[in-house]
């Protein structure tokens, strides 16, 4: 393995770790019923993939407390 390969591998692992962290936070938000707004599943999705902005037609589960 070359030094360049090591650098690329390290960068790829860092990206995956950051994505994993965002995914975990999104699941926590889902568990808390925070589907939209700041700190929500929707916000973490945009952090995972900014290209989703302007493309999602959000239709989230209704939280029992909202019924």
């Amino acid at each position, binding site marked *: *393995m070359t030094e360049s*390969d090591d650098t690329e*591998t390290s960068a*790829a*692992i860092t*990206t*995956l770790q950051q*994505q*994993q962290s965002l*995914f975990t936070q*999104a699941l926590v938000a*889902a568990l808390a019923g925070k*589907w*939209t*707004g*700041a*700190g*929500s*599943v*929707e*916000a*973490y*999705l*945009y*952090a*995972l*993939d*900014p290209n*989703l*902005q*302007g493309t*999602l*037609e*959000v*239709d*989230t*589960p*209704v939280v029992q407390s*909202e*019924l």
Partner: protein
Amino acid sequence: MTVAEDLSLLSQQQSIMTAALAAMAQGRWTGEPPSVEAHILALNPALAPLESVNYLLTSEAGPAGGPEWWDNFDPDTVMPRQSTSWTCSACSLSWCLRATQIDTACDEWCAVDKIGRPDQINPTWGLTNIDGPGQALIVAFESYGVEAEQAWLSFNQMYALATETVSLMSGSVWNHWVAVRGRVGADLWIANSGPGWMGVNDILTRADYERLGPFNCVSLVR
């Protein structure tokens, strides 16, 4: 498998998980792709058949209703130009009060009084933030019995919040307050009393947000 192939596979799986999360947010839980069910089976076909329940979706539950200011909110409300260089926060506050019909008569100078001249807002500093970022705006909303909260938000967070409530925000580099009307495509749609300042009119893009931030945001609590 090589390390590179392992990483490539993990990256593909991460994309599928992101797509599954997007399907959740859009209420596509079961059935043909791009459903949550289909994405889970793409990650691991051995999980078939999956059991699932039916969630009640926002589109099926009907309008949640309230609070009154949110029901009244009109994002097309006109934003007049600010009459001085230091009243952008007052213009943004008055726009928010009028757009939500919390106070339909409040103009730029009414908002200056509400914020509190000269301690909280004055010609030297604009909004002074003497009690903390945006606190004077929160107090102004409280005087109407409306709760507001302050946060430093990323573009992703503000974009997600933009259809949930009404917000005012100020970029540290921008040195300018605006109100948020909503979204246009992948951008923020703003009510800007100083159109053209640092190249921004009614649309604030992600690039603008990064260039002009970080952003101090004051949002009404629903």
